[in-house]
């Protein structure tokens, strides 16, 4: 989405006044200067690309919200990468995927994870057992110790969540 020039100006002002503060905030959360600078940059890019800036009485609260969300995504990505590395560690070296393949797998999984973010773990598990494993609702119910009715409700909730993540983001 192209940002209008007035949005550009407003975000520019925000940047000038608060960039240092955002970097500091992120350094506390992340522990490193370099990632803090990167994510601070991402924070302002995210704000710039999300349309007209709302009028902000507490600009730092808003910046904190956006930066924290990016921070959460960063940590989840890290956890995903670490988990993936560990899962590969028990494979024989000749079966290990190439670095390019690893990156593609991680990118795609992270994209799925972002769409599912915010769903409870049980609802997510139900949804993935249906979509990825192709299990029927009675099979999911049996595997997770739920009733079929609960499985069906979880499916509705998960589908709606994903839909809103993509179509009303």
């Amino acid at each position, binding site marked *: 989405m192209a940002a209008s020039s007035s949005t550009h100006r407003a975000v520019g002002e925000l940047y000038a006044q608060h960039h240092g503060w955002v970097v500091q905030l992120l350094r506390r959360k992340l522990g490193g200067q370099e990632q803090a600078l990167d994510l601070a940059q991402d924070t302002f890019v995210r704000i710039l690309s999300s349309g007209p800036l709302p009028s902000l009485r507490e600009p730092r609260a808003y910046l904190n919200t956006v930066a924290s969300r990016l921070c*959460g995504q960063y940590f989840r990505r890290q956890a995903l990468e670490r988990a993936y590395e560990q899962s590969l560690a028990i494979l024989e070296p000749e079966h290990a995927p190439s670095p390019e393949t690893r990156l593609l797998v991680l990118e795609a999984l992270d994209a*799925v994870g972002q769409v599912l973010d915010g769903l409870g773990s049980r609802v997510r598990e139900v949804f993935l057992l249906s979509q990825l494993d192709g299990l029927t609702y009675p099979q999911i119910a049996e595997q997770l110790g739920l009733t079929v009715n609960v499985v069906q409700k979880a499916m509705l909730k998960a*589908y709606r969540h994903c839909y809103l993540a993509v179509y009303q983001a």
Partner: protein
Amino acid sequence: MTLFQPADDQLLDEYVLDQALMWMVTLQSGVSGAAEQRACAAWRNANPQHELAWQRLTGLSRDLRSSTSGLPAPSARQLLRARSLTSRRTLLKGFAGLGIAAAMGLSVRERVLLPQLFSDYRTTTGERRPVRLAGAGEVQLDTQTAVDVRGPQLTLNQGRLLLATTADTFVGIKTAHGWVRPAALSRLIISQDLAGQHGTQVQMLAGSVVVEPLQGARLAIGTGQQLTFDRHQSSPAQPLLPAADAWTRGLLIAERMPLAQVIEQLNRYRRGVLRCDPAVAGLQVSGSFSLDRPDASLDLLAKVLPVRVQRVFGYLATVVPA
């Protein structure tokens, strides 16, 4: 890659979305039939908005599958689980707020994650697959089987597996009932609580093994023997059943086996519910049946025995007197 991007920018009514969600969830249940399919097709045809909503939802499912197509479904699920486990740790860290706490937060995260990470393999109904473990040997998982891997130790949570140990490593297998400790270069089948079996069964194809019930005495058996143990004790060693490893080749070889037992085994390989009418449960069956095509095996049974198979939507099947 353009996954999870809107497929169009049209407006969609909220209630149309609700209806589409209901249809989608109904048709994916695995228990709906041709009547529902026809009704859904009619609904989609009735209004372009309906079709639009339907296409958006099927697009989501398609993106989900293609994003994880490089991985077995259980691994993809586990990776996603690991990814979101961290967010809780991060939350804690946010409360602490200081650099030093952040460093500690990392170690907390490691401790919480490590035991549940990726050590977990699961097969779905009808699936059999090999798992190679660096240094630990080779494992083949039967249908509906779940194992955890922690370094040189396997935990069999459910189902059945074939394990071939390598020369230089020692693997202990844990089940709900105790430990199974095979010698190097052994081939053995371990199953836990399969239909009609209470406890852990160990079948030795080659080599030797020591079993240790959690609260009972150890027992060693060798090639051509099998035993079953629970938490307290082990059965004596018995001769290995013929064709014990036929399942690894996708076969069920029955030798005067009661029909009910054959059905129980096929049921583990077949999606849905498979039942045997008690009136024919005791019929004796001899022959070789495909586990990979359980419905074809049912049809074969109906040819050689005085039985027929009643199917409802292909999901529920009952073997009844002909």
